[in-house]
């Protein structure tokens, strides 16, 4: 009865609906709520399992102990230094990989002779797990930043290289004909058609490479380092300080997300003509 009485009122005066009336309208909960609930549920489950002793604290930290570990890390005063070290290694490695990848990719895509010479090796190298090179790179480039930059560069090079080649080769022949009909040379075709055409590919390569560079820097630090977030993880792990390991992993997750967001921002800025993606 009440429903029937309320209905005409809400129809006649929809603008004056109260907050309560708005909640009365049943809307499906937004998707992100499910996502948040899933995470909260997982954390809650961990908390129960660990605090009840089903799972050992050496295997899984008590989720409630991670904020404290994070606070300790921040208060220790060395966090900024470690973060900057790892970020610097990843950024340098990424920059080297980007320059090398773009140049090599352009040479391979533009000059048949370079392609015939290098491509078999590139394919072979690409299928090899490059992380396996980390110990050798430590020997070659020393205990300092150099070896970490090298690992980051080596593993982030390939996504850039492969995507650059694919992008340059995917150029629509019709667009090239427009330039050729004007007597354009190789360089004009490259700078006016091929390169801009390849940019969407290059950017998806760069997005992957950013993540790879961060991974490379961490792996480099695992193999041997005196500072950096990878070093912190190894240290904490050796002391069985599992909450701190997780605290560092959380920081890494935040850095990775920020780097990815930065790439997406650049993507939108540079690729203004392409439909939005991801």
């Amino acid at each position: 009865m009440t429903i029937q009485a309320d209905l005409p009122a809400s129809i006649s005066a929809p603008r004056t609906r109260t907050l309560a009336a708005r909640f009365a309208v049943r809307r499906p909960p937004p998707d992100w709520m499910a996502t948040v609930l899933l995470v909260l549920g997982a954390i809650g489950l961990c908390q129960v399992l660990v605090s009840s002793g089903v799972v050992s604290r050496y295997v899984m930290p008590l989720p409630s102990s991670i904020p404290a570990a994070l606070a300790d890390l921040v208060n220790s005063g060395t966090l900024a230094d470690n973060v900057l070290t790892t970020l610097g290694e990843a950024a340098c490695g990424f920059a080297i990989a980007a320059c090398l990848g773009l140049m090599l990719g352009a040479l391979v895509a533009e000059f048949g002779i370079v392609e015939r010479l290098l491509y078999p090796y590139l394919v072979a190298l690409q299928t090899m797990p490059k992380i396996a090179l980390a110990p050798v790179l430590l020997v070659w480039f020393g205990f300092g930043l150099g070896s970490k930059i090298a690992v980051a560069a080596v593993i982030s090079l390939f996504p850039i290289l492969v995507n650059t080649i694919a992008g340059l080769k995917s150029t629509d022949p019709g667009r090239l004909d427009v330039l050729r009909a004007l007597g354009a040379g190789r360089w004009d075709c490259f700078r006016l058609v091929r390169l801009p055409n390849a940019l969407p590919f290059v950017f998806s390569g760069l997005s992957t490479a950013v993540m790879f560079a961060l991974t490379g820097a961490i792996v480099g630090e695992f193999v041997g380092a005196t500072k950096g977030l990878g070093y912190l993880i190894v240290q904490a792990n050796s002391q069985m300080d599992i909450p701190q390991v997780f605290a560092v992993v959380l920081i890494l997750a935040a850095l990775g997300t920020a780097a990815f967001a930065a790439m997406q921002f650049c993507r939108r800025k540079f690729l203004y003509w392409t439909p939005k993606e991801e």
Partner: protein
Amino acid sequence: MKGKLLRFPPDGVASGSAVSGLTHVSPVAPAIAVRGLAKSYATKTGDAVQALAQMNFEVATGEFVSIVGPSGCGKTTVMRILAGLVDGYSGSVSIGGSIVHGPTPEIGVVFQDANLMPWRTVLANVMLPGEVLRLDKRLCRERALSLLSLVGLSGFEDKLPGELSGGMRQRAAIARALLHDPKILLMDEPFGALDAMTRDTMNVELARIAAEAGKTVFLITHSIAESVFLSDRVLVMSNRPGRIIETIAIDLRRPRSLDVVADPSFAATVLRIRRLLERDGGSASTVTLAH
């Protein structure tokens, strides 16, 4: 051309040439002259396929000439040879009296697809030939703006190609082809991808643009109605190996509106060309211009 030569004998050919050493005063050369053009391709299996056999035709300066023919008869090959994009043919092709060795800025090409660069604005797309030919940027800009207004795209200068309709993109492509002020406009089925209504509108526009720009136009199409509507002469091409089976002069009065479709001589010419193509065993579309 022979008539022209007779009417306008070049000065000094009789008296001066042998004495002064000026062996030859070149008569006004046709915009396009194709003689004995033949072209064959090697297929993947190694067989040679003859695409063109013994083509001969001329296009006079300022003339609008179309080639109609069935799909796959080698029309596009003819255009690509004229544009200097294909070699390895026999016979001779000359543009404005000089033999074609490669692309020349005397020609502007409009392709089947607009082929605009999606990362460039409409204005920047139209200015592209200027960058390739290293022309003065400011002049190019001015010219591009006036060409955009010629093709009816004023106000769309800063749009990206992705924001335009198919017809508008093809208009931009026409403006781009005209930027460096070529003497000849080569068009390869420029409206083939457009719907019938847009295509009719574009044909009326093309007739106007060609007249206003004063260009020699060489159009490739498989629409008989389109070729009759636009051209001074229609070259009818045979099935592969392609050659010209008939040249038909169109003497409909200009400027032509879509009403010419109702003209008995329009219908008769369309029918005549269709018969020629049918007799040859080809199949060309006879899409009539809609009203």
